[in-house]
């Protein structure tokens, strides 16, 4: 690594380029970033929630909107992380081939991956920041622990982005993405204790849900905004997500090397 100017490390340049590119196109996404939580919390949290609370006398011990908001937050982080690691990653490898451009410069393959995952983390932080502001507006944040949502959301974003990136860098056709969304992303979004407590599921499905990543992110973020920490559960959630991220990164690293270092 000789002959490098004493400026930014190579991996940082790779993260920077995502931020720079985003700064050129952010206007399109900023409305949805705020509008999505606003509409969902109004319609489902307040509208549907009033009905739920009247009949169920609170969900998981809190008002439905309090229960729902962190679930939606985690679900949104999840979808953003996956979205930005499917078609965009394939585009940078196969269509626009901009990763190859990076590899012809002092950056190397690990820098390219760090660039993508680092940016995924930052995106997760931005999206959850906007979401928290909207939640505060609805008065559904009940603890200062909510600030911990930001780093947790960033880490969870990496955990979701890494295996998706590994898949996008392995497959040669985008057809698989449609299946991933239909049979992976959608079911997880709906059944990971996002909209209703896990206890509503039949026992065998509960066990399946425990094995999937989104559930654990939902648990953690809900603990934070409600300010309730079931210690063992939170530990399990953290360990699960950490292991999931580590394995995902290992696969993504392998996939990037196999695809782009020929």
């Amino acid at each position, binding site marked *: 690594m000789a002959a*490098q100017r004493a400026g930014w490390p190579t991996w940082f340049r790779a993260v920077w380029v995502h931020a720079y590119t985003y700064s050129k196109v952010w206007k399109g996404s900023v409305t949805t970033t705020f509008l999505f939580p606003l509409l969902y919390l109004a319609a489902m949290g307040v509208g549907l929630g009033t009905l739920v609370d009247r009949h169920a006398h609170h969900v998981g011990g809190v008002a439905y909107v309090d229960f729902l908001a962190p679930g939606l937050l985690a679900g949104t982080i999840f979808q953003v992380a996956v979205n930005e690691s499917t078609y965009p990653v394939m585009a940078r490898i196969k269509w626009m081939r901009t990763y190859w451009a990076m590899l012809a410069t002092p950056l190397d393959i690990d820098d390219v991956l760090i660039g993508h995952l680092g940016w995924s983390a930052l995106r997760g932080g931005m999206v959850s920041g906007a979401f928290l502001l909207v939640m505060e507006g609805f008065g559904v944040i009940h603890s200062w622990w909510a600030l911990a949502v930001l780093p947790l959301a960033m880490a969870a974003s990496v955990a979701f982005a890494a295996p998706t990136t590994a898949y996008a860098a392995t497959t040669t056709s985008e057809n698989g993405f449609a299946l991933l969304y239909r049979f992976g992303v959608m079911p997880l979004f709906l059944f990971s204790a996002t909209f209703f407590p896990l206890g509503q599921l039949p026992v065998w499905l509960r066990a399946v849900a425990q094995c999937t990543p989104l559930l654990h992110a939902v648990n953690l973020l809900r603990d934070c905004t409600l300010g309730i920490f079931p210690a063992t559960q939170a530990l399990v959630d953290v360990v699960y997500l950490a292991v999931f991220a580590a394995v995902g990164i290992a696969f993504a690293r392998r996939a990037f090397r196999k695809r782009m270092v020929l």
Partner: protein
Amino acid sequence: MIVAEGLRKAFGSFAAVDGVDFRIGKGESFGFLGPNGAGKTSTMRMIACMSPYSGGSLRVLGMDPMTQGPAIRGRLGLVPQEDTLDEELTVLDNLYIYGRYFDLPKKLIRERAERLLEFAQLTDRRNDKVGPLSGGMKRRLTIARSLISEPDILILDEPTTGLDPQARHLLWDRLYRLKSQGVTLVITTHYMDEAEQLCDRLVVMDKGRIVAHGSPRALIAEHSTREVVELRFAVDQQQANVASVEDLAERVEVLPDRILLYVHDGDATIGEVHRRGLLPESALVRRSTLEDVFLHLTGRTLVD
């Protein structure tokens, strides 16, 4: 600047590059000529430190690509075969982010970008998105981008493939200017006219090996005659007419659509063909090109 000895690149049991030696000096314009699949791109990717070599040795700027890749790449410019531009960004932004990969200060990039836009004749498109630009413009932008770091060596992998003749000539002119500025050029191509135009020296590759090397003129002198007569007979009649003309030439090549006679005096040969009462549908005389060299060395044409 670049020294390869017994350089090899294997993919599984397939040897894409099978032991090649070459030496490229400072300020030289060096070409790799060969058909698709000859191993040119693999060789380029090894020189550009994007692909680890499987055997032999390679030194670029005195360093080993295996261990000092980032340092070497910091002093190289690469124009890849397929465009790798960010189509969602503007022309100027593509130059800017590329400069940042080399950690150049913002001000320096802006200065160089102005000059390079001029050089690539893209100044009036500077704020346009790259996506809708023509193929020729994208190629020119790719070359401009590769120069943002003022590299010691510029590697061009089939720089003009897929461009119309006008765009090719414009590109050649730009490359010629770089060469006169002392930039070392390494070029792969399967167009012999491109190699003749741009290269001081070249190697002809086939099936992962170097089959000939020298200057374009020396290669032609060594492996071909001064002139070539092309006789085109009626469809499927080429083979039938070979016997009547083969004594006229030093060497004869029969292609599906014509017979090539390698001779010193083309007009005299055509006169003799007519005296013998043969009536080809067309007959023309031309100078020997690298295509003839390649045909002679490998028995195949370059572009199929």
